């Protein structure tokens, strides 16, 4: 196992490359989920305001 982790002495280079790959792609996957929460919140606020306006005029 430690032989596998050492990667023939290049462990630091190999694992940091794979870590960058994993972290950047994970961030790329999470970004639209966060934006989705924000957009849905805005949309619900917009719907509530529209309903209030229509109740006031009625």
């Amino acid at each position, binding site marked *: 196992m430690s032989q596998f982790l050492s990667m023939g*002495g290049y462990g630091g*280079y*190999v694992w940091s*490359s*794979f870590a960058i*790959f994993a972290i950047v792609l994970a961030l790329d996957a999470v*970004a639209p989920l966060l*934006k989705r929460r924000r957009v849905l919140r*805005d949309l*619900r606020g917009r719907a509530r305001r529209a309903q209030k306006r229509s109740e006031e005029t009625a």
Partner: protein
Amino acid sequence: MNPLVLWFHKLGSPPYFYRLAGRLLPWLWGLGLISLAVGLYGGLVLAPSDYQQSDAFRIIYVHVPSAWMSLFIYAFMAVNGFIALIWRIKLSETLAMASAPIGAAFTFICLATGSIWGKPMWGTWWTWDARLTSELVLLFLYFGVMGLYQAIEDRRQASRAAAFLALVGIVNLPIVHFSVNWWNTLHQGSTVRLFGPSLIDSRMLWPLLVMAVATKFLFAASLLSRARVDLLELEAGKDWARQVALADGDAA
């Protein structure tokens, strides 16, 4: 009308695309993660180490698929930008702009892992060689497209201006690809060839191809996920977007 053309028109409608993408997404993520696991296991465990570079060569399994994706996504963005400019299809504008950050992410991975690979093999983190410089220009083109899109208030005008920039930047793609042939570079030439035999043992090649497939699926999943949100935002005043938000209200 021809059923295929009819389907194409339907696909261009934001609510239809939103529902279709929502159904496809779990499959794309699933296939992406499975092929990623297979490719990583093959690349890190099953592939034999290189006779010259020992285990440092394994960086190829993240570096080269990312490099391929950086070019592939740029071409995808430019094609959608072209469609958006000519036919003013809203979906193409959204797809072009949603693919820019993903392409920038892959370009960044390519540059960062290449730099980490360069240190032990070339003795330097960075050199202003043709391949490295043109890939860096590609990253700046992605940033330019994203920046221009954010800088203009009207969303649709912004995406058309950014699409135009993306089209101009396409001239960089052949430069990146052929840079290793046109100039004397530190970077090695192509190892994997579409035409003719690849210069790599099949035990090392198959995990690389699996990783290439995995990154395609991950791109598709991220793209659809981003395009769905962007369409909701773009069509915030429309009835279908309100219904989606209200239906999702308890879940989120």
